[in-house]
């Protein structure tokens, strides 16, 4: 039990999910998006939370695979959608992915959604609803219930608020004729349940499970998983390989999050440092800088990495050069080879580079005659 919000385990015993036979499923109206985890649900566990919404109940179901990984979540919503002083029942099952991303919806057998005058949804309208619910950035997040329909029109008795009077700027984000239904469902999807889904998933994190999430076709899922590695799950060999595979120029977010996921403790490993450095020559300037910055978190700097970075100094410019020198300063790099490479920079026609080299060498106290001579020559030239 966590503090802050109470999660009650409804059933201590796992209930075997009786997968619905295909023909029964076909009877139901179901719309789903690409799942984060394409594994078959094997069991279902129920959790009770205080959602403080009007879904009719506080039970959130978690489906799990045979391996015990959470696969999806669902809530059985029974609520009223009210407008124009009339209410109608909304009976629907909403599904979430393990990362909190909307997965889909399903209507109980024989149920259908209706619009104004009880006109049933057409298939394309179900599809549109599914699309709208999948948009986490929908402006519906910021619309208040009152803004959906202009007040002057609402006041007109008998006029359907949905078909003719919906605010113009809302129309792009709702199923026409079902503005309140769309709005209400969107807020269920992105309301308290979503936070609870994430919280329950976080309790089941394991290297294998995170690896599964990283296989998701959705980049948001991948970022979610990368944000849930550091300090939470062990960086196994498989996870390390996958994580490093994300460091490439074409997917900056994933590369940045993957680098961020490496903790100082893991950077104790020389092999990890070397694997990370393998990415250095292939990456662009921004990622190169992130890799160098990451090595600042390492408790020690692998000698091979240090030598390779020292050689990279010969062609480095601007921020990258500063960053490498800062890294060397942090790790107190004072060996002769590195010292000589840096001392060569003293002769650069670029004042910025030579000054950077001078500042480094002045405090590094490198015990090498060549370096000392170059340093003294520089001082004499610049009357320092």
């Amino acid at each position: 039990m966590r503090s802050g919000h109470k999660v009650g385990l409804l059933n201590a015993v796992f209930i075997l999910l009786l997968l619905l036979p295909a023909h029964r499923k076909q009877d139901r109206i179901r719309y789903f998006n690409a799942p984060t985890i394409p594994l078959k649900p094997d069991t279902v566990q129920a959790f009770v939370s205080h959602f403080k919404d009007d879904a009719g109940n506080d039970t959130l179901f978690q489906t799990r695979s045979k391996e015990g990984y959470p696969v999806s979540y669902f809530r059985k919503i029974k609520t009223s959608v009210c407008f124009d002083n009339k209410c109608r029942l909304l009976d629907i099952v909403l599904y979430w992915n393990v990362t909190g991303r909307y997965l889909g919806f399903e209507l109980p057998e024989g149920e259908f959604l209706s619009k104004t005058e009880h006109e049933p949804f057409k298939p394309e309208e179900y599809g549109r609803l599914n699309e709208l619910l999948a948009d986490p950035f929908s402006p519906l997040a910021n619309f208040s219930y009152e803004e959906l329909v202009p007040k002057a029109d609402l006041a007109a008795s008998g006029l359907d608020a949905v078909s003719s009077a919906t605010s113009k700027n809302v129309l792009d984000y709702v199923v026409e004729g079902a503005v309140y239904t769309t709005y209400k469902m969107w807020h269920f999807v992105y309301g308290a349940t979503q936070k609870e889904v994430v919280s329950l998933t976080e309790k089941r994190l394991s290297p294998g499970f995170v690896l599964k999430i990283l296989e998701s076709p959705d980049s948001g899922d991948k970022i979610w998983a990368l944000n849930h590695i550091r300090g939470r799950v062990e960086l196994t060999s498989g996870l390390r390989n996958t994580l490093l595979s994300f460091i490439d120029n074409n997917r900056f977010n994933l590369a940045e999050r993957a680098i961020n996921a490496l903790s100082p403790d893991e950077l104790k490993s020389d092999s990890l440092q070397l694997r990370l450095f393998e990415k250095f020559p292939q990456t662009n300037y921004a990622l190169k800088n992130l890799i160098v910055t990451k090595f600042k978190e390492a408790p020690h700097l692998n000698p091979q990495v240090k030598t390779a970075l020292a050689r990279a100094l010969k062609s480095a410019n601007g921020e990258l050069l500063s960053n490498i020198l800062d890294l060397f300063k942090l790790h107190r790099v004072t060996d002769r080879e590195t010292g000589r490479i840096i001392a060569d920079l003293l002769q650069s026609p670029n004042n910025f580079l030579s000054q950077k080299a001078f500042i480094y060498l002045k405090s590094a106290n490198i015990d090498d005659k060549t370096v000392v001579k170059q340093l003294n020559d520089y001082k004499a030239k610049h009357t320092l």
Partner: protein
Amino acid sequence: MEKIKRRSALTSLGALSLGMAAPTLSKGERLSEPYQLIQQTLKTDILVIGGGTAGVVAAIQAARAGRKTILVENGSQLGGTTTTGGVNYPGIFFAWGKQVIGGIGWEMVQEAVALNDDTLPDFSIPHGKNHPRHQVRVNGQLYALLIEEKAVEAGVQIRFYETPTSATFQKGNWTVQTVGKGTSTQIVCNQLIDCTGNAYAASLAGFDLLRESVTQPGTLMFRLEGYDFNSLDLKTIKSRYEEAIKKGELVKSDFRNNIVGLLKSKGDNIQHVLGADSTTSEAHTVANLKGRSSLLTTLRFLRTLPGCEKIRLADVQNETAVRETYRIDGHYKITHEDYVTGKVFDDAVSYSYYPIDVHDENGVVPDHLKEGVVATVPLRALIPKNSRNFLVAGRMVSSDRLANSALRVQASCMGMGQAAGAAAVLASMQNKTPLDVSMKDLRKLIEEHGGIVPVSSQKG
């Protein structure tokens, strides 16, 4: 010698004072000489005027490439629109899943994000209506500190509180006269980069400028707090707002005729100051007075509304940020057609990605670029006609109004800043005017410093 002079001067002062009224000096006080205006001449390779979004990048680029660089800024901090203006979301750096603005601008933004424990947006989400999601939010004040540190580390000599009063070109060098608080400085430079946002240096230098008869409004950024938007009776509030406008108590255009938008945004980029112009002290004073007065009037009105009685001002920027003033008449004028078709120029030096975004008194409806389209900026658009050793970077880039409404945004200005800085470096080193710099050398230099240059990147 100096001591004697000083002593005798003080003695004379003392004698004068004795003759009138003897000052009573407390312990630790001394009678001080009147402040003398410092007049000096400075020589540098590159002078950047304006330390805003583009200028700070141009100056850092120039200094990191080894050129002696002076940066003159008439305010008290660097960053311009991002910091002083309070528009602390300097997007957009990624387009259609790929990074289009990198280099020094991106380095500064990314460091500000990291140091504030912020996170970058997911740049893979589609553009179009989600374009605000691509904006990278930074802590403006932290950003100001960081970029100042970077400029100083690069060796840029920063001169705050100074503004140019003349710019003349003689014998291959520019002589720029500046005035500041107690300073009168003549700066002789080989290359001059105008990053004032208003083409002010270009104007002083005598180059032609372009301006719309009606420019886009400016915005005073602020933040409201002390109310719960979701519990407000918006119908009543709207009706009260309309009534106040009818009575002349409020001005319709001040908040885009959108009281709900004002309350929902809590003041974030919602105010419009018509005709706001930052070119001169007088014009910017007017823009500041208008912005503050309208905010104060509106704040008082808001506090009379149900549910808003405790509304208060959590924060307000020091000045009204300005969108549009003057543009240069450059060797090439980027057109709306160029922008929306993503024309890649032979001399393209940076990308720009933003919807066509013209604010008017009714608000703004961004016109998004078609999928895959990313505009580019040619070097020629950064160089005024008939100029030598002169570049601009930022919103005064040579362009038509519609193209400019997209080019003016901060990330694009950073890209232009780096390109202008690099072009000035090469021109200074090779004793050329920027138009004659080899494109191959220019691309190489920009890329060595992390910048992204259109053509060469495409060729891989």
